[in-house]
Protein backbone atom coordinates (compact mmCIF):
# COMPACT_ATOMS: atom_id res chain seq x y z
CA UNK A 1 0.00 0.00 0.00
CA UNK A 2 1.15 3.51 -0.75
CA UNK A 3 2.42 5.10 2.46
CA UNK A 4 0.87 8.45 1.59
CA UNK A 5 -2.56 6.88 1.07
CA UNK A 6 -2.26 5.10 4.40
CA UNK A 7 -1.26 8.33 6.14
CA UNK A 8 -4.26 10.10 4.57
CA UNK A 9 -6.54 7.31 5.81
CA UNK A 10 -5.21 7.68 9.34
CA UNK A 11 -5.66 11.43 9.32
CA UNK A 12 -9.18 11.11 7.95
CA UNK A 13 -9.95 8.75 10.83
CA UNK A 14 -8.81 11.48 13.26
CA UNK A 15 -5.23 10.52 14.08
CA UNK A 16 -3.22 13.71 14.41
CA UNK A 17 -0.10 13.01 16.48
CA UNK A 18 2.68 10.67 15.36
CA UNK A 19 5.68 9.65 17.41
CA UNK A 20 8.09 6.77 17.28
CA UNK A 21 11.42 5.38 16.15
CA UNK A 22 12.03 4.49 12.49
CA UNK A 23 12.40 1.07 10.88
CA UNK A 24 13.48 0.42 7.29
CA UNK A 25 9.94 -0.90 6.71
CA UNK A 26 8.69 2.63 7.44
CA UNK A 27 11.16 4.59 5.30
CA UNK A 28 8.55 6.12 2.92
CA UNK A 29 6.07 6.60 5.79
CA UNK A 30 8.65 8.43 7.92
CA UNK A 31 9.83 10.69 5.11
CA UNK A 32 6.23 11.74 4.49
CA UNK A 33 5.68 12.35 8.21
CA UNK A 34 8.76 14.56 8.38
CA UNK A 35 7.21 16.96 5.82
CA UNK A 36 3.64 16.67 6.99
CA UNK A 37 2.03 19.86 8.24
CA UNK A 38 -1.44 18.52 8.98
CA UNK A 39 -0.27 16.33 11.89
CA UNK A 40 2.15 16.71 14.71
CA UNK A 41 5.27 14.55 14.48
CA UNK A 42 7.82 13.83 17.21
CA UNK A 43 10.80 11.75 16.17
CA UNK A 44 11.61 10.11 19.50
CA UNK A 45 14.93 8.75 20.70
CA UNK A 46 13.68 5.51 22.25
CA UNK A 47 10.48 3.55 21.94
CA UNK A 48 9.53 3.82 25.62
CA UNK A 49 10.02 7.59 25.44
CA UNK A 50 7.70 7.67 22.41
CA UNK A 51 5.12 5.74 24.46
CA UNK A 52 5.36 8.39 27.20
CA UNK A 53 5.10 11.26 24.69
CA UNK A 54 2.02 9.63 23.12
CA UNK A 55 0.40 9.28 26.56
CA UNK A 56 0.94 12.98 27.28
CA UNK A 57 -0.36 13.97 23.84
CA UNK A 58 -3.50 11.86 24.29
CA UNK A 59 -4.34 13.43 27.65
CA UNK A 60 -3.82 16.85 26.07
CA UNK A 61 -6.43 16.09 23.42
CA UNK A 62 -4.51 14.43 20.56
CA UNK A 63 -5.20 11.08 18.93
CA UNK A 64 -1.78 9.48 18.76
CA UNK A 65 -0.15 6.91 16.50
CA UNK A 66 3.07 5.22 17.62
CA UNK A 67 5.47 3.61 15.16
CA UNK A 68 8.37 1.35 16.00
CA UNK A 69 10.13 -1.88 15.12
CA UNK A 70 9.17 -4.96 17.11
CA UNK A 71 12.65 -4.77 18.69
CA UNK A 72 11.18 -1.71 20.42
CA UNK A 73 8.46 -3.82 21.98
CA UNK A 74 10.99 -5.07 24.52
CA UNK A 75 11.95 -1.53 25.46
CA UNK A 76 8.40 -0.28 25.60
CA UNK A 77 6.37 -3.13 27.09
CA UNK A 78 6.80 -1.85 30.65
CA UNK A 79 5.74 1.62 29.49
CA UNK A 80 2.60 0.20 27.87
CA UNK A 81 1.90 -1.81 31.03
CA UNK A 82 2.39 1.00 33.54
CA UNK A 83 0.97 3.86 31.43
CA UNK A 84 -1.46 3.02 28.62
CA UNK A 85 -2.86 -0.16 30.12
CA UNK A 86 -3.53 0.99 33.71
CA UNK A 87 -4.38 4.65 33.03
CA UNK A 88 -6.49 3.51 30.05
CA UNK A 89 -4.80 5.55 27.38
CA UNK A 90 -5.37 4.40 23.80
CA UNK A 91 -2.82 4.47 20.98
CA UNK A 92 -2.60 2.93 17.54
CA UNK A 93 0.79 1.22 17.36
CA UNK A 94 2.30 0.53 13.94
CA UNK A 95 4.91 -2.10 14.68
CA UNK A 96 7.12 -3.37 11.92
CA UNK A 97 7.21 -7.13 12.21
CA UNK A 98 10.72 -8.46 11.81
CA UNK A 99 9.22 -11.87 12.40
CA UNK A 100 9.09 -15.42 11.12
CA UNK A 101 8.58 -14.20 7.54
CA UNK A 102 11.71 -12.08 7.54
CA UNK A 103 14.47 -14.58 8.33
CA UNK A 104 18.22 -14.17 8.12
CA UNK A 105 18.60 -11.48 10.75
CA UNK A 106 20.03 -13.05 13.86
CA UNK A 107 19.41 -9.92 15.95
CA UNK A 108 15.68 -10.13 15.18
CA UNK A 109 15.24 -13.90 15.60
CA UNK A 110 14.28 -14.14 19.27
CA UNK A 111 12.02 -11.09 19.41
CA UNK A 112 10.57 -12.00 16.01
CA UNK A 113 9.57 -15.44 17.24
CA UNK A 114 7.95 -14.09 20.38
CA UNK A 115 6.38 -10.78 19.36
CA UNK A 116 2.87 -12.23 19.16
CA UNK A 117 3.44 -14.29 22.33
CA UNK A 118 4.30 -11.10 24.21
CA UNK A 119 1.27 -9.21 22.88
CA UNK A 120 -0.97 -12.16 23.79
CA UNK A 121 0.58 -12.47 27.25
CA UNK A 122 -0.25 -8.81 27.93
CA UNK A 123 -3.75 -9.08 26.39
CA UNK A 124 -2.81 -6.47 23.81
CA UNK A 125 -4.99 -6.65 20.70
CA UNK A 126 -3.25 -6.81 17.34
CA UNK A 127 -3.74 -7.61 13.68
CA UNK A 128 -1.37 -8.26 10.82
CA UNK A 129 -1.07 -5.49 8.26
CA UNK A 130 0.17 -6.77 4.92
CA UNK A 131 -0.51 -3.63 2.94
CA UNK A 132 -4.23 -3.92 2.49
CA UNK A 133 -6.64 -2.11 4.79
CA UNK A 134 -10.00 -0.43 4.23
CA UNK A 135 -11.27 2.91 5.51
CA UNK A 136 -13.91 0.96 7.34
CA UNK A 137 -11.31 -1.16 9.15
CA UNK A 138 -9.34 1.94 10.17
CA UNK A 139 -12.54 3.49 11.56
CA UNK A 140 -13.26 0.23 13.42
CA UNK A 141 -9.83 0.40 15.02
CA UNK A 142 -10.51 4.02 15.96
CA UNK A 143 -13.72 2.93 17.66
CA UNK A 144 -11.88 0.14 19.50
CA UNK A 145 -9.37 2.69 20.81
CA UNK A 146 -12.13 5.03 22.02
CA UNK A 147 -14.28 2.30 23.56
CA UNK A 148 -11.59 0.14 25.14
CA UNK A 149 -9.03 2.83 25.92
CA UNK A 150 -6.21 0.39 25.28
CA UNK A 151 -3.47 0.25 22.65
CA UNK A 152 -4.08 -1.57 19.37
CA UNK A 153 -1.15 -2.96 17.38
CA UNK A 154 -0.89 -3.34 13.62
CA UNK A 155 2.02 -5.67 12.86
CA UNK A 156 3.36 -4.29 9.60
CA UNK A 157 5.00 -6.89 7.37
CA UNK A 158 7.88 -6.25 4.99
CA UNK A 159 6.80 -4.33 1.90
CA UNK A 160 3.35 -3.50 3.31
CA UNK A 161 4.02 0.24 3.09
CA UNK A 162 5.80 1.55 0.03
Amino acid at each position, binding site marked *: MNAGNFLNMLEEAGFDFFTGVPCSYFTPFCSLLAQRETSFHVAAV*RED*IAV*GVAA*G*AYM*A*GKTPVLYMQNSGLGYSLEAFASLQMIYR*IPALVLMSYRGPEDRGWEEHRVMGEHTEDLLNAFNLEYALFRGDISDRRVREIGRYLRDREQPFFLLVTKGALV
Partner: protein
Amino acid sequence: MNRLEAIQCVVDGLPGDELIVHANGVISRDSFYCADRKENFYLLGSMGLASSVGVGVALSRPDRRVLIFDGDGNILMGFGNLALIGALKPSNLIHLVFDNEAYGTTGNQPTLSARVSLSEAARASGYLSAALVTRRRELLEVMPTLYRAPGPHFLQIKVSRDVPVTGPRIPYSAREIKERFMKVLGNRSD
Protein backbone atom coordinates in the same frame (compact mmCIF):
# COMPACT_ATOMS: atom_id res chain seq x y z
CA MET B 1 16.86 22.06 52.19
CA ASN B 2 15.22 18.67 52.00
CA ARG B 3 13.08 17.46 49.12
CA LEU B 4 9.78 18.21 50.82
CA GLU B 5 10.87 21.79 51.59
CA ALA B 6 11.98 22.29 47.99
CA ILE B 7 8.72 20.95 46.57
CA GLN B 8 6.68 23.03 49.05
CA CYS B 9 8.64 26.11 48.03
CA VAL B 10 7.87 25.57 44.31
CA VAL B 11 4.22 24.70 44.92
CA ASP B 12 3.69 27.76 47.15
CA GLY B 13 5.16 29.99 44.44
CA LEU B 14 3.09 28.67 41.52
CA PRO B 15 1.60 31.63 39.63
CA GLY B 16 -1.67 29.83 38.85
CA ASP B 17 -3.01 26.78 37.09
CA GLU B 18 0.28 25.28 35.89
CA LEU B 19 0.07 21.63 34.87
CA ILE B 20 2.53 19.46 36.79
CA VAL B 21 3.62 16.02 35.59
CA HIS B 22 5.21 14.11 38.46
CA ALA B 23 7.78 11.33 38.41
CA ASN B 24 6.84 8.14 40.23
CA GLY B 25 7.61 7.41 43.86
CA VAL B 26 8.47 9.91 46.54
CA ILE B 27 8.36 12.92 44.19
CA SER B 28 4.65 12.28 43.56
CA ARG B 29 4.01 11.51 47.22
CA ASP B 30 5.78 14.62 48.55
CA SER B 31 3.95 16.86 46.11
CA PHE B 32 0.62 15.21 46.94
CA TYR B 33 1.38 15.85 50.61
CA CYS B 34 2.12 19.56 49.90
CA ALA B 35 -0.98 20.14 47.76
CA ASP B 36 -3.06 17.74 45.71
CA ARG B 37 -4.03 20.02 42.82
CA LYS B 38 -6.39 19.03 40.04
CA GLU B 39 -3.67 20.08 37.58
CA ASN B 40 -1.35 17.41 39.00
CA PHE B 41 -0.64 14.23 37.06
CA TYR B 42 1.11 11.47 38.99
CA LEU B 43 3.02 8.63 37.38
CA LEU B 44 2.59 5.56 39.54
CA GLY B 45 5.34 3.69 37.69
CA SER B 46 7.00 4.27 34.31
CA MET B 47 10.28 5.39 35.82
CA GLY B 48 12.22 7.64 33.47
CA LEU B 49 9.16 8.76 31.54
CA ALA B 50 7.79 11.74 33.50
CA SER B 51 9.59 14.09 31.14
CA SER B 52 8.32 12.13 28.11
CA VAL B 53 4.72 12.54 29.26
CA GLY B 54 5.42 16.18 30.14
CA VAL B 55 6.81 17.03 26.72
CA GLY B 56 3.86 15.25 25.07
CA VAL B 57 1.47 17.47 27.02
CA ALA B 58 3.53 20.64 26.46
CA LEU B 59 3.76 20.16 22.68
CA SER B 60 0.04 19.42 22.38
CA ARG B 61 -1.06 22.36 24.52
CA PRO B 62 1.28 25.29 23.85
CA ASP B 63 -1.27 27.56 25.55
CA ARG B 64 -0.62 25.93 28.95
CA ARG B 65 2.52 26.05 31.06
CA VAL B 66 3.77 22.59 31.99
CA LEU B 67 6.11 21.75 34.87
CA ILE B 68 7.82 18.41 35.28
CA PHE B 69 8.73 17.36 38.83
CA ASP B 70 11.50 14.89 38.17
CA GLY B 71 14.12 13.02 40.17
CA ASP B 72 17.79 12.34 39.51
CA GLY B 73 17.23 8.60 39.15
CA ASN B 74 14.43 9.26 36.69
CA ILE B 75 16.55 11.64 34.61
CA LEU B 76 19.41 9.17 34.46
CA MET B 77 17.10 6.36 33.40
CA GLY B 78 15.50 8.39 30.62
CA PHE B 79 18.54 10.44 29.63
CA GLY B 80 17.39 10.63 26.00
CA ASN B 81 14.54 12.86 27.14
CA LEU B 82 17.02 15.70 27.69
CA ALA B 83 18.04 15.51 24.02
CA LEU B 84 14.41 15.34 22.89
CA ILE B 85 13.34 18.37 24.94
CA GLY B 86 16.51 20.30 24.13
CA ALA B 87 15.97 19.69 20.40
CA LEU B 88 12.22 20.36 20.27
CA LYS B 89 12.38 23.35 22.63
CA PRO B 90 8.79 23.62 23.85
CA SER B 91 8.77 27.15 25.24
CA ASN B 92 6.04 26.35 27.80
CA LEU B 93 8.04 23.65 29.61
CA ILE B 94 9.86 23.94 32.94
CA HIS B 95 11.76 20.84 33.98
CA LEU B 96 12.63 20.70 37.69
CA VAL B 97 14.80 17.98 39.16
CA PHE B 98 14.77 17.36 42.90
CA ASP B 99 18.20 15.85 43.11
CA ASN B 100 19.05 13.96 46.30
CA GLU B 101 21.72 11.87 44.54
CA ALA B 102 19.83 8.74 45.57
CA TYR B 103 17.02 6.38 44.71
CA GLY B 104 14.87 7.75 47.52
CA THR B 105 11.91 5.42 47.09
CA THR B 106 13.93 2.23 47.34
CA GLY B 107 16.27 2.93 50.27
CA ASN B 108 18.57 5.75 49.17
CA GLN B 109 20.98 3.76 47.05
CA PRO B 110 23.33 6.31 45.41
CA THR B 111 22.73 7.51 41.84
CA LEU B 112 25.36 8.93 39.50
CA SER B 113 24.18 12.52 39.89
CA ALA B 114 26.85 13.22 42.51
CA ARG B 115 29.41 12.67 39.75
CA VAL B 116 27.58 13.65 36.56
CA SER B 117 26.21 17.17 36.15
CA LEU B 118 22.57 16.93 35.08
CA SER B 119 22.28 20.68 34.51
CA GLU B 120 25.36 20.69 32.25
CA ALA B 121 23.83 17.80 30.30
CA ALA B 122 20.61 19.77 29.91
CA ARG B 123 22.52 22.86 28.79
CA ALA B 124 24.44 20.81 26.20
CA SER B 125 21.15 19.33 25.02
CA GLY B 126 19.77 22.75 24.14
CA TYR B 127 17.49 23.86 26.98
CA LEU B 128 17.28 27.65 26.86
CA SER B 129 18.33 27.81 30.49
CA ALA B 130 19.87 25.24 32.78
CA ALA B 131 20.90 26.05 36.33
CA LEU B 132 21.79 24.43 39.61
CA VAL B 133 20.58 25.69 42.98
CA THR B 134 21.42 24.35 46.41
CA ARG B 135 19.72 26.78 48.82
CA ARG B 136 16.13 27.67 49.43
CA ARG B 137 16.87 31.37 48.93
CA GLU B 138 18.32 30.71 45.49
CA LEU B 139 15.30 28.60 44.58
CA LEU B 140 12.95 31.40 45.66
CA GLU B 141 14.90 33.86 43.53
CA VAL B 142 15.20 31.77 40.40
CA MET B 143 11.65 30.37 40.05
CA PRO B 144 9.98 33.69 39.07
CA THR B 145 12.62 34.22 36.37
CA LEU B 146 11.66 30.86 34.82
CA TYR B 147 8.02 31.90 34.64
CA ARG B 148 8.95 35.16 32.90
CA ALA B 149 11.26 33.90 30.13
CA PRO B 150 10.38 31.39 27.39
CA GLY B 151 11.70 27.86 27.98
CA PRO B 152 12.40 25.08 27.99
CA HIS B 153 14.08 25.60 31.34
CA PHE B 154 15.94 23.04 33.41
CA LEU B 155 16.53 23.56 37.09
CA GLN B 156 18.51 21.10 39.15
CA ILE B 157 17.67 21.54 42.82
CA LYS B 158 20.07 19.78 45.18
CA VAL B 159 18.19 18.47 48.18
CA SER B 160 19.27 16.56 51.26
CA ARG B 161 18.17 13.04 51.95
CA ASP B 162 16.43 14.01 55.22
CA VAL B 163 12.86 12.87 55.07
CA PRO B 164 10.90 14.69 57.80
CA VAL B 165 7.63 13.00 56.85
CA THR B 166 6.71 10.54 54.17
CA GLY B 167 3.70 11.49 52.10
CA PRO B 168 0.93 8.92 51.75
CA ARG B 169 0.68 6.70 48.71
CA ILE B 170 -1.41 8.37 46.02
CA PRO B 171 -4.94 7.29 46.96
CA TYR B 172 -6.33 7.42 43.40
CA SER B 173 -6.39 4.73 40.74
CA ALA B 174 -4.43 5.37 37.56
CA ARG B 175 -7.70 5.88 35.72
CA GLU B 176 -8.88 8.49 38.26
CA ILE B 177 -5.58 10.36 37.96
CA LYS B 178 -5.94 10.45 34.17
CA GLU B 179 -9.59 11.47 34.14
CA ARG B 180 -9.05 14.34 36.53
CA PHE B 181 -6.07 15.60 34.53
CA MET B 182 -7.93 15.33 31.23
CA LYS B 183 -10.91 17.15 32.65
CA VAL B 184 -8.78 20.10 33.70
CA LEU B 185 -7.47 20.20 30.11
CA GLY B 186 -11.01 20.23 28.78
CA ASN B 187 -10.80 16.68 27.43
CA ARG B 188 -12.97 13.77 28.29
CA SER B 189 -11.89 10.22 27.71
CA ASP B 190 -15.29 8.60 27.40
